[in-house]
Structure formats: structure tokens, C-alpha cells
């Protein structure tokens, strides 16, 4: 310890030139004095500033606490929703074997809107055996293919033509679940 302080001896001669010492004193010497009023004003202002910051600190702490709590709750909710219940994909039916479903449904709906509402249901009983089944569609298809005289009553969908669309509508009439075959 004493060895260390020996290096900072005030009496040590560093060999500085007197002219340099004089110039340095002129530059950095304490020739200016701060008035006491200015000193107090600076200290007061600093105190006010730090008091304000000190008052604000509890609010910021509460905000941080609230944010942390909110983050925990959000994380918990995300976990809950992510793991609860079977996924939509698992319970979704595999419908790749029924590709023309939209088209089928359209024609099925067409049957409801034309035959059941606008036309007599008996018009779909082509073979007149008292029931509507696939044989009615089959026989209508045969009539159309053989280019026989097409009767107006075979225009099942009411579009003014007797063609394959009428056969489809008739076939859908045969497979409807809510009919009594």
C-alpha cells in the first residue's frame, strides 16, 4: 500500500517546463466562481426533476406488472384453445369420392324447385307403375336416345327441352331420402 502511494508524491518533480505550467493554469485554472443563487437554482431544479421521476416510478412498475399478468393470461388462453377439443380436420368427412357433389346438389335442388312445386309429381312416373324409381329415368333416357316423339310431359325441369337434364332430375327424384318409394 505504501509502495503505491509513493508514486503520487506531491513533491515529485515531473520535469514540466514552467512556461507550460503557466499556460495550463491559464486554461484550466479556477478563475470563475459560480454564484450561490445559481448553484441553489440548479440543485432545486434537479431535485424537482428527480422527485417527479420518483413519483412516476410506481405507475411504471404497476404497468409492467399488469403487462406481465396480461401476457400470462393470453398465453394461458392460447394454450387452452390450441389443445382443447378435436380438430376440425379430424372430424371432417372425407368427400373425395363424390366429386360432382355441387352439380348433383344443384340438380337435386332443381328437382325441388320445378317438379315438386311447379309440376305434378305424377309426371315423374314415366313407366306409370305407381312409383318413382331409377327405371323411370332409365326409360326416359331410352326414349331420348331412340329419338322417338318427345312428349311435353317429359320436360321435367320445365326448360322447354327434353334432354339428359330431365333424366338427371328424374333420377334424383328417385333417390331422395324424404320420399316414400
Amino acid at each position, binding site marked *: 500500500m505504501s509502495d503505491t502511494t509513493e508514486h503520487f508524491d506531491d513533491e515529485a518533480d515531473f520535469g514540466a517546463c514552467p512556461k507550460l505550467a503557466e499556460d495550463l493554469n491559464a486554461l484550466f485554472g479556477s478563475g470563475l466562481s459560480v454564484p450561490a443563487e445559481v448553484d441553489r437554482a440548479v440543485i432545486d431544479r434537479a431535485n424537482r426533476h428527480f422527485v417527479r421521476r420518483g413519483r412516476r416510478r410506481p405507475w411504471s412498475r404497476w404497468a409492467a406488472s399488469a403487462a*406481465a399478468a396480461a401476457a*400470462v393470461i393470453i398465453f394461458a388462453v392460447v*394454450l387452452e384453445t390450441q389443445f382443447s377439443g378435436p380438430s376440425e380436420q379430424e372430424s371432417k*368427412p372425407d368427400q373425395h369420392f363424390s366429386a360432382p357433389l355441387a352439380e348433383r346438389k344443384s340438380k337435386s335442388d332443381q328437382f325441388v324447385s320445378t317438379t315438386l312445386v311447379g309440376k305434378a309429381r305424377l309426371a315423374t312416373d314415366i313407366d306409370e307403375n305407381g312409383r318413382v324409381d*331409377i327405371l323411370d329415368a332409365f326409360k326416359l333416357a331410352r326414349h331420348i336416345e331412340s329419338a322417338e316423339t318427345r312428349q311435353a310431359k317429359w320436360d321435367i325441369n320445365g326448360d322447354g327441352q327434353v334432354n339428359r337434364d330431365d333424366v338427371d332430375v328424374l*333420377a334424383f327424384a328417385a*333417390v331422395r331420402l324424404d320420399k316414400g318409394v
Partner: protein
Amino acid sequence: MKKTALIIAASMCVMVPVLARQPYPEYPTAQPKVRFAPLHIYVDSGERALGAFQFELKAFGGQIKIVGVEGGEHAAFKEPGYYDPAALANDRIIIAAFNTANELPSGRTRIATIHLQITGRVEPEYGLELTVAADADGQEIPAEITFETGEQK
């Protein structure tokens, strides 16, 4: 320090019950087992050519949904037959098809495959009824309808 401890305690109170409820796949759960099974439908028309058919299938026992319809093995009935789209997600379906071509199947032939979603371990039972079968001229013919389960067609 006190507030930090409070935050940690509050976090534990929220997280522990949530994590305790997570249904991890390796643990047994109360969810009923769901499986998919094909049902192959066959018609035997004997020596007569099969030009048209219509049948109705009803599944009994357990929760069963029809999820898809596939066509038959012969080119004449390769496309899925007509059916009500409302039958999908139902346990009952009516399927019908016809073909006016000359090349028609005879004997025993697979006319459709119906894909089912079965929930639970109950083995379902099926009610299968042939509504009508007809030959190439549209004349009704006697025929027998049967089904088989399993992946093999």
C-alpha cells in the same frame, strides 16, 4: 422483490390449472374412437345383364355417418350412382344407377362402395334392400344384393 414474487405466484395460479388440463396425445382421453370403413355392395343378376339398379342402405348401432360414395367395378357403373347429397353425414342412403350401353355386367359384380365414419367401438349392423334391378331393356329382373366390409374389394 415482493411484487416479483406476487407476479410469479399469480402466474403459477393461472398456468398450473391450464397445463393440468392439456389432453396430450400420449395419455388416454375420453374422446370416442373414430374410424373409417368401406362397405362394398354387390349385385348378382345371374345370367341377365344388369342395366339398372336401385338400393337402400341403413346403418344401425353406434354413431355412423356416410362420408363418401364410390362407383362400381364394371365400366358401365364406374361412376358413383345417383344419391341424395343429404345422405352424406347421415346413416341412410338410396343409390341408383343405369346404363343404356350394350356392355353391361352380369353375374356378381360390385356396384358401389360406401365409405362410413364409425364413432365408438360398436360394430355396426346394416340393413340393405334392393329396390329394383333391371336388364338392358329396362325390364325388372330378380337379383340378389349383398355387402362386404373391409379394405379388399
